[in-house]
């Protein structure tokens, strides 16, 4: 009762805020189509690294709710899919939603925008074991450093909940990104990210029995035969690792609301748990290169 009375007393005070909150604007819809060449879709080292090309599409639409003069909420829904050319078991569709709550102290050019966000999405693969949910939450800061350079920093927690517990992962990511505007239409961007936590690596079971023995000894009991690959028997291992990711990209805008984006992403991983004999840490190390071309439209 006391809670209800307090709520009733607070209601008149909160009413303007609620009214403001209901005064929302839809954000423009966005559609992105991409083609990516990935030289390590298995996230494995040596001959276990498999190449593929991926066609992707993603669409999103959201709304902005002003909460106060300096705060606002943004809610968006998204849907999309990725089609792998060779390893179709990795092809998947997804849909989800993201909510951001943002604070900006003023309309001053250099004022930073602080944001907390949460995102959740459901994923349905051509194979079964990876089906499930992915969630992320974290904080970001967006700060124009100069009239040409903008910095974005993000600290986030990523969680995934697959059908197999091998694909139940969590990791923490710290990222910094710089956008460098050459002019109104051309932007170069570079980012660096450090991720620490669980990752899945898929390796051939019978190609190198000694390596397989080491992988099993190290990752046990988080091992399962990976159903996304049908060329030979491959096992997915969940391990603790540190991953460093660097991205270099270029975005060219065409008039209003359209752009072409070219990017190169490089990642390198190292084992963050003891390797059990006969495995060595190098058996779990991998690098990856992704070259991506994307066309984006907002309308």
């Amino acid at each position, binding site marked *: 009762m006391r809670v209800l009375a307090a709520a009733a007393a607070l209601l008149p005070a909160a009413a303007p805020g609620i009214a403001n909150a209901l005064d929302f604007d839809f*954000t*423009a819809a*966005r559609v*992105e189509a*991409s083609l990516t060449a990935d030289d390590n879709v298995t996230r494995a080292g040596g001959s276990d690294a498999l190449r593929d090309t991926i066609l992707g599409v*993603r669409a*999103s639409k959201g709304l902005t709710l002003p909460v106060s*003069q*300096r705060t*606002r909420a943004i809610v968006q829904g*998204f849907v999309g899919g990725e089609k792998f050319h060779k390893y179709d078991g990795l092809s998947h569709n997804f849909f989800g939603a993201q909510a951001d709550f*943002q604070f*900006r*102290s*003023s*309309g*001053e*050019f*250099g*004022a930073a*925008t602080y944001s907390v966000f949460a995102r959740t999405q459901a994923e349905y693969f051509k194979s079964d074991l990876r089906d499930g949910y992915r969630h992320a939450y974290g904080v970001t800061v967006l700060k*124009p*450093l*100069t*009239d*040409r*350079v903008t910095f974005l920093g*993000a600290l986030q927690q990523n969680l995934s909940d697959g059908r197999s517990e091998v694909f139940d992962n969590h990791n923490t990511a710290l*990222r910094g*990104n710089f956008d*460098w*505007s050459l002019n109104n*239409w051309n*932007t170069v961007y570079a*980012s660096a990210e450090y991720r620490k936590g669980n990752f899945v690596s898929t390796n051939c079971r019978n190609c190198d029995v000694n390596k397989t023995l080491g992988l099993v000894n190290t990752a046990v009991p988080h091992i399962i035969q990976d159903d996304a690959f049908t060329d030979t028997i491959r096992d997915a291992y969940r391990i603790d690792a540190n991953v460093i990711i660097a991205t270099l*990209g270029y*975005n*060219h*805008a065409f008039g*209003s*609301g*359209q*752009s072409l*984006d070219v*990017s190169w992403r490089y990642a390198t991983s190292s084992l963050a748990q003891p390797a059990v004999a006969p495995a060595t840490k190098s058996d779990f190390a991998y690098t990856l290169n992704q070259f991506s071309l*994307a066309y*984006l*439209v*907002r309308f």
Partner: protein
Amino acid sequence: MRPFGVLDDPRRRILIQALAAGFFSSAGTAAAQLFGRSPGALPAGQSIYRVSGNVTVNSQSATLKTLIKPGDTVETAPNGEIIFAVAQEAYLLRGGSRMVIEQPPERSGLVNALRLVTGKVLSVFGKGRPTRILTATSTIGIRGTGVYAETDPEQTYFCTCYGVAEVTSNTDPTSKDTVVSTHHDRPLYILAKGKEGGRIRRAPFINHTDQELMLIESLVGRTPPFVFPMQDYNAPRREYP
């Protein structure tokens, strides 16, 4: 023994020679051109914040040291752009534009008068400073406002980014409109031809950004009334996975 003042380390010698040649100040200028700088109120005696490509003021090539004052004509080649301030007003003049900052007639009640002969300009004006903007097809009266205009002989695009603007067609005085805007609420086209009373039409939001408005307001020590910039005219960017 080496005489006092003689440098024995060749690296120190090179460093001192570079300092004497102003290497680092020119490197700093080059870095500012390349990576930009944090905008702020322009110091007294400086009008231009940034100039790129071919830009002239009264037919003389513009540099960062060029002063711009009422009565001057600023012109940009297609590859040119200039960002500058005059008194409490600040402007971003895009390529292929010609603009005259006129001396308002005495007893007109105007503080500023601006004639955009052709091209595109983003402007912000001080509060309580009545201003008239003349374009190829329209006359616009404003006060303490941020506006964006594009004009050619056929039509003018005019966005009242915030504030109040009274828009009248030059060729048809019955075509007029008053726009009260908080954030790019009602951009307009003002046509040179068309039926009487119907030469002003709604237009989409095009070719200018809130980041540009924040930048030019900062040159005259102000901030725009909005806090969060709209992203509607920025290039769409990929979501980070």
